[in-house]
């Protein structure tokens, strides 16, 4: 579905994305997980043609993409990190304009808009101006808009950043429904739980480079599915083990505050980079 070959983006002083290779399968929910500044957003912006790439190739459905190819762009739905809705018009008008721009015939457009308002739970507020919406509602509306033209792949750039815990849960439910509909999704996130809950496969990205790529479970197994967390030399230390028994033995030999817990993707990331994902 989406193939990224040797993709790079260089700015004057930094390399934001460094020879990235990715292959996202049809119907897959794929996550790019990494800390802020890892190159996730730049990657999404290159795929959605906003940022020109320095080198490499992006292929969607067998066709190479570039900014001025209008046909292939209709195959992508993009939900950027930052709100880019028209604030002075209503939610319905935002979707209506989108439908017109993407050449969806009136009858189908109107029907689909109603369905999407239903899907995102925004039906009651559809005639309100977007500027009166909360952050979570705007994000949902952006998802509705990105789905209106029935894209073959949806790009979600940090869909829950800036949302409170309850809005984030609701967003996850929405994304899970999308997943069960079989849509191909590329999601970027720096929230561990988000990647674990939603993604079929996860690519760990740091400093523009892809470090690891596998299912969340395989990545955790590779590191060790049990973590022993303890406090030593003024900071929290982690050790990883294949089984609870091994962890118990190790923890038995430690003094002070010791905690045994299941490993998560944060531990995987820490193991490969010595850096935490959620530290900005």
């Amino acid at each position: 579905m989406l193939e990224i070959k040797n993709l790079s983006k260089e700015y004057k002083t930094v390399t934001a994305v460094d020879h990235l290779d990715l292959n996202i399968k049809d119907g897959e929910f794929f996550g790019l997980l990494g800390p802020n500044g890892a190159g996730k957003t730049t990657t999404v912006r290159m795929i959605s043609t906003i940022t020109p790439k320095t080198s490499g190739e992006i292929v969607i459905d067998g066709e190479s993409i570039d900014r001025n190819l209008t046909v292939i762009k209709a195959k992508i739905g993009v939900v950027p990190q930052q709100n880019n809705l028209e604030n002075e018009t209503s939610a319905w008008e935002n979707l209506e304009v989108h439908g017109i721009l993407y050449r969806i015939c009136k009858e189908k457009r109107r029907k689909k808009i109603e369905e999407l308002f239903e899907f995102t739970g925004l039906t009651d507020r559809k005639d309100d101006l977007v500027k009166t919406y909360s952050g979570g509602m705007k994000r949902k509306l952006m998802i509705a808009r990105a789905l209106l033209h029935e894209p073959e792949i949806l790009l979600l750039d940090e869909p829950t950043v800036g949302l409170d815990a309850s809005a984030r849960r609701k967003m996850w439910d929405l994304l899970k429904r999308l997943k069960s509909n079989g849509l191909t999704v590329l999601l970027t996130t720096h929230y561990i739980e988000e990647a674990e809950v939603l993604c079929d496969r996860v690519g760990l990205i740091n400093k523009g480079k892809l470090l690891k790529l596998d299912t969340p479970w395989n990545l955790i197994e590779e590191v060790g599915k049990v973590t022993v967390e303890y406090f030593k030399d003024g900071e929290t230390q982690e050790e990883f083990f294949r089984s609870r028994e091994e962890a118990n033995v190790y923890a038995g030999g430690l003094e002070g505050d010791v905690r045994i817990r299941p490993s998560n993707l944060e531990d995987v990331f820490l193991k490969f980079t010595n850096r935490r994902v959620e530290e900005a």
Partner: protein
Amino acid sequence: MSGLYGILWQEFIVFKRKFWATSIGFLVSPILYLVAFGWGLGSGMEINGVSYMAYIIPGIIAMNTMMTSFNNTANSINISRIFYKTFEYYVISPINMTVYALGKIIAGACYGIYSGILITVIVSIFTSDLIITPYFIFIALLNCFVFSALGFLIGLLINSHADMSKFMSFVITPMSFLCGTFFPIDKMPELLRWFIYLLPLTHTNIALRTTGETPESMMLHAAVLMIYLIVIFIVSIRLCKKVE
């Protein structure tokens, strides 16, 4: 052309929603100019054999349609690039950027045209000094499009609101005062006059006051504005396809 329709439809909704604020806003500065320069300063004065009021009205129409068209397009593009990020939305969409540019320029020009109509109506209530010919309408329309296109280009080029107001102070405002809006440009020193003669607003101002103009010079003014429009449009589209 559904892209163009979509862009214009959206602009129209916003216009409709802000109809009264926009309309009243468009009237404030021309009325002030008319009162201050026409009735106040210029009462009893004549320029080129006509009353100063009759002289100044086409100038105010030229200046105001320039300001309105330029400001609307420039601010709309600049804010949509820097602040609202809606420019990115159009880059992502399957709309050719030429169509996007065209839509935004037409929308901005329509604001200019609307402000021109408002001034004409107001002026016609109080005086009979304004003579409207098809050539007058053509030039006024062209003026709106030239400055809307310039607004589009500047909105793309400039990356901050502060620089935007600098452009206003150094280019648009001097043009509005020096290009024959309030007095004929032949009162200027010769070197400066030649430079001013190259600017588009000068041609609009001269053309809107077609007293004693030959058909050749009428053609020339239209041609200068056309050339400005075409060149700015082409440069804008090229830039539009590259800008991030």
